Structure formats: structure tokens, C-alpha cells
């Protein structure tokens, strides 16, 4: 439910570690709503989300990264300060933070206030957050928006590395993600047959 309107119903999916799920559907079908439900930023009207495995003492949102439409950057702070803040807030290891700017190709701009970044560079900085503080679940809302071809390629590499380490990705997207063997969940269409297999997550 969003704004008193039922967005979708009968959605059922499972994602296991090392797997990616692409959430597709027309505009307004509820892709962002689904991601925000998983992130714990919205309450489902009905149904449940279940996480099996993972750290026992942390809730699902505490083990997830949410990359939304808004990049969560402070224009007054420098690139380095923005990243260092989220790194400290999420409690990542020091080793992962050092290389994160380099990985997304922003190392040269570390001292520049984030106000001067272009949309694509802001996106890259937001992505650097995912690397700086490792969390097993990535919730990506149109992650390739505003990224150039090189940036998209780098994001695909990062996603592949994340999956190889047993991570889990749920991405809302219109285009292909560029990863092989991605499960797809179409919202706004007739409900597909229930996914099978011992999953990590289900939302009936």
C-alpha cells in the first residue's frame, strides 16, 4: 500500500545467496515500493519477508544496502568526507574504504565538494558506499541511471564480484543488467507460478 493505494499483490519470490533478481515492470508498477519494503522503509499491508541465514543478531535492513533514486550525499562535504561518513556510520572495515573511490573512478576528485559532481559522478559515489561498508544484500533501484558506458561496465563487474562472494542482489531495472543468468520478477502482470527452491527470501 502506498498513499492509500494498493500497489501490488500476490508477489512471491525467493532469492538465494549468489543470485540476482531483476525486478521489472512498467512505470508505477511498484518496483521501488518492493525494494523499500525489503529495506524495511515501508510496512507491507499483508505478507512477509523472510531472511534465512545471515548474521543472527542483525535485522534484514541492517544487512542490506539500499541504492535509491536519491544519492544521500551532502553537497557541502567533499567526496572523501561523504564516503567516510557512510563508512563510519555503517561500520565497514578500513581496508574496504580505501580502495572504494578508486574502484568507482573518483579518486582524483576526493577533495572536491560533492555539490560540484555531475549526476553520473554522484551515482558513482553512491555506489562506492556499497563497497566501503560490505553488506550481503544489495537493493538497487535503477542502478545504471545516469551512468556512462564505462560506469555501467564497472557496476556490472562490482555486482558480479558481489555475487561471487555469496552476496545477493535485488535490482529494479528497465534495461538488461548485463549479468548472466538473472532471475526476473515482472510486476503488474499476471502472477507467475511460485518460485521454487529453498530460498533466502519470500514475500507471499
Amino acid at each position, binding site marked *: 500500500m502506498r498513499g492509500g493505494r494498493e500497489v501490488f499483490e500476490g508477489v512471491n519470490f525467493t532469492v538465494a545467496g549468489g543470485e540476482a533478481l531483476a525486478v521489472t515492470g512498467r512505470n508505477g508498477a511498484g518496483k521501488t515500493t518492493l525494494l523499500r519494503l525489503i529495506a524495511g*522503509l*515501508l510496512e507491507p499491508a499483508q505478507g512477509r519477508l523472510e531472511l534465512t541465514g545471515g548474521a543472527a543478531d542483525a535485522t534484514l535492513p541492517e544487512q*542490506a544496502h539500499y541504492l535509491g533514486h536519491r544519492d*544521500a550525499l*551532502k553537497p557541502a*562535504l567533499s567526496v572523501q568526507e561523504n564516503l567516510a561518513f557512510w563508512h563510519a*556510520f*555503517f561500520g565497514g572495515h578500513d581496508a574496504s574504504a580505501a580502495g572504494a573511490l578508486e574502484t568507482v573512478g573518483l579518486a582524483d576528485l576526493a577533495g572536491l565538494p560533492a555539490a560540484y559532481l555531475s549526476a553520473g559522478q554522484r551515482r558513482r559515489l553512491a555506489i562506492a558506499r556499497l563497497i566501503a561498508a560490505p553488506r550481503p544484500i544489495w537493493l538497487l533501484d535503477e542502478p545504471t541511471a545516469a551512468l556512462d558506458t564505462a560506469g555501467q561496465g564497472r557496476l556490472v563487474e562490482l555486482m558480479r564480484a558481489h555475487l561471487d562472494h555469496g552476496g545477493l542482489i535485488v535490482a529494479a531495472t528497465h534495461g538488461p543488467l548485463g549479468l548472466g543468468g538473472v532471475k526476473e520478477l515482472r510486476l503488474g502482470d499476471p502472477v507467475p507460478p511460485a518460485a521454487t527452491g529453498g530460498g533466502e527470501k519470500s514475500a507471499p
Partner: protein
Amino acid sequence: MTALWAILLRDMRIAVRIGGGALMGVLFFLAVVTLIPFAIGPDQALLRKIGPAILWLGALLASLLGLDRLFAADHEDGSLDLILMGAASLELTVAAKGLAHWITTGLPLVLAVPVLGLLLDLDPLAIGAVALTLLAGTPALTFIGMIGAALAVALRRGGLLLPVLVLPLTVPVLIFGVSAAETAVIGPLMFGTPFLILCALTLMSLVIGPFAAAATLRQGLD
């Protein structure tokens, strides 16, 4: 703890950067307090008598400035979503934000009192009393105002809603703050009695403010 430190340092850093709100409150305080003698006229005895009340009113209004941005800025750029997903409890995070806001906007008001007190012809004792009561009372203003700031986010109405909601709640703080400052100068009561009640109000708001603000923010998720 690292997460709370991170929030505290980040908010203080943003406040002192260009476009931050750290000096705005003090400048507004200065403007209000310097205008009052022009409006009242050169009656030194009267100024001395109402000086503590003027300083308190100015500080109260100045501490409301910029308060509406406390959570609204984080909400607009998406930071609030991520803060909610952090492992740190929202109540403590909100309290850390409030503390950062007080250090950058409330504390400068206290430090400005010795200068502004001279403009109102207050004697050193009265200036000291006002500064001490403001030091004890301004945290209450910030932490009560925090509830309004969270409501402004939850209800999608910033700006004018905040003072309307918050000002009535600050009345007890104003009453006991001014009476403590005045009794130090003219008596007849002991300074300690209203001052201790002021401290109690501050301690209460330090507890109630973060819980109420955190509950409001959770309610206002979308």
C-alpha cells in the same frame, strides 16, 4: 558508538560550512537584541529590568531558526532512509543530531550573551545569570523543537508549521529560564529554585525529545 560519532561530526561539519546554519542563529539573536533598545528608547532602568527577558526571547526565537532543516535535509537527499537502515538505534542517532544542532546553534547563543548583555546595560551578575540559564535551557529548546522538526518531515509541511507546534511547548522553559535569571538580580526568591526546575525541564526534554522524534520519523516513512 562510531555511527553516532560519525553523525555528530558530519552534522557539525555541515553546519560550519558555507550554507550551514551555525552563524545564522547568532546573527538573528544580535539583530533582535539590538533592535529592542531602539524600539523602547533610552530608558536604561527599564532596559536593565527587562534585559534578561529580552535575551531569553531572542535566544528562544533564534534557536528555532534552522530547526526545520534538522531532518528535512536528510529526508530530501535520501540520507534518512539509510540512517533508518543503520544498526544504531534511531533514538540515539536522533539525539546525536540534536546534540550537533545544539553545539552549532545553541552554544553560540550562550557565548554571545556577554556581548549582547552590555547593549542592554546589564551588570556582570545579571549577564552571568542569563548565560547560565541559557546554557541550561537551550538544550531543552533544541530537543523539544526536534519533535516539531520530525513532524515537519512526517507531515510534509516545513517552515511555518514548526514554530506553531513548538513555541507553546517551550513556554515552561521560557518562564523558568527568565525567572531564574531575574531572581539572581532582583530577588526575592532563591536563584536555585527556578533554576533547578529549568534543569529538570531540560533533562526531561533530553529523554522525551529523541523518543518522540524517532517515533514520528518511523511513522512518516514513505
